[in-house]
């Protein structure tokens, strides 16, 4: 993967994170049932964390060599 492709991967991740953050906010202000809100917020937060772990922290490629950067 060349530098431009790798940088584009980061842009995809930030767009996904922005959409998920907006969804989070809409859930909080749009739903009254606390149990539903907490459950949905937990799910969205987990997905956001997974996006950061995979796209930004390369967790699935943790044991690659240093010259094999994604």
């Amino acid at each position, binding site marked *: 993967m060349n530098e431009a492709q790798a940088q584009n991967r980061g842009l995809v991740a930030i767009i996904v994170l922005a959409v998920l953050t907006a969804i989070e906010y809409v859930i909080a202000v749009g739903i009254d049932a606390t149990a539903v809100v*907490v459950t949905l*917020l937990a799910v969205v937060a987990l997905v956001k964390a997974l996006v950061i772990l995979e796209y930004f*922290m390369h967790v699935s490629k943790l044991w690659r*060599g*240093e010259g094999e*950067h994604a």
Partner: protein
Amino acid sequence: MSAAAHAVAHSPEKRLRISRLGLWLFFLSESCLFGAFAAARFYMNGTYVPDDLNQILGLVLTSILLVSSLTAYRAETAIAHGNVAHGKLMILATMLLGLIFLGGVITEWSIAHFEPSEGYGTSFFSMTGLHASHVATGILFLGLAYMFAARGKYTPASHWGMTGVVMYWHFVDVVWVFFYPALYLTG
């Protein structure tokens, strides 16, 4: 151990693996710390969130931190591809966003209508304070990474110092991903 065996045992590849393992073990221990604070928040206050908590500021702070993860990623990616000039620029951008985030937290503290001695206030100030101290540490580490990058210490084949700092920054971002809804949105 013979000199040859010692050299194999401490080859650059081996050192890199040990460094990575150490960093992820550190993240694990830090997760326990942050998790304890989050658990205490719900144990003490349930899902209560004050009505007058500044939601817009919370959303802005979250957005700033997420964008800073992108700039940190761009810095690491650029340096991994030998583009040190762009890498340095993105390190500075990440540090600036981190400083803005800290300014936002201080603003939040100064306008909060609750006291640290109140139930929610205890959780809010301790969680945001603990997190902000990690952001401040991350800014210092980024400053060191900038210095090393400026001195030409990082190459596409050897830039673990840069990667480690950026991973730490992303970890601090992951923590906020959970702290933001826990403090601002559950009510």
